């Protein structure tokens, strides 16, 4: 039970940490809507932007994963379905991580 409590605490801490990141993302979307492709590419390929994307990805995936697993523990009671969904969720987040890393590589190259 101690580990579940720690995960819950980390879930809460990650939500606090994500707040400025989400605010920055939404502001960036508004800013980018007024920029050309070249300007967006220039902004996004900066060291800080890449650092921001990577930290956001790690925090976001952790928060989403713990949150969805909590919902599953509450509502999915069949062990087989639970296991299957866990595999699907893990695959989804692995896919997201891979695509973010791939996008960063393509932006940098």
């Amino acid at each position, binding site marked *: 039970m101690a580990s579940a409590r720690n995960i819950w605490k980390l879930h*809460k801490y990650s*939500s*606090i940490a994500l*707040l400025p990141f*989400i605010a920055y*993302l*939404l502001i960036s*979307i*508004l800013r980018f*809507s*007024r920029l050309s*492709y*070249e300007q*967006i*590419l220039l902004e*996004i390929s900066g060291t800080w932007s890449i650092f921001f*994307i990577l930290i956001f990805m790690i925090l*976001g995936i952790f928060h*989403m994963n713990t*949150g*969805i697993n909590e*919902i599953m*523990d*509450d*509502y999915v*009671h069949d*062990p087989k379905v*639970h296991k299957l969904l866990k595999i699907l969720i893990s695959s989804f987040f692995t896919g*997201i991580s891979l*695509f*973010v890393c*791939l*996008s*960063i*590589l*393509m*932006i940098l190259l």
Partner: protein
Amino acid sequence: MNSPLSPHLQIYRWQTTSLLSILHRISGVVSSLGSMIIIIYLLSIGLGEDTFKLVISISDNVFIRTVLIGLSFCIFFYILSSIRHLLWDYGYGLDLNVAKITGWTALSVAVILTICFWLILYGVI
């Protein structure tokens, strides 16, 4: 798997607080799935100008635009509702009436922020 079972939604009497709690979870799941859309945009930037312009033009489709508006609402509501949950964790706003007021406030502010976000995005304001 040994945790207590949550109430079964189909036999549970709807209340403001439970409705907002379920909406918090739904908005969280939708925002998680919506992260794919942000990654598609990011990937399209990496793939080049033509792909980026194609993705932007697809975004202008009415159906896609409606999905994006719904997603932005979910993100705003999830942020505000998360702040509400964090305040509860520190012992603030636990009174039933206060919880109802903060819940409806989160919902209303999320609607206002969504409208403002899209108006700014369209250059109206």
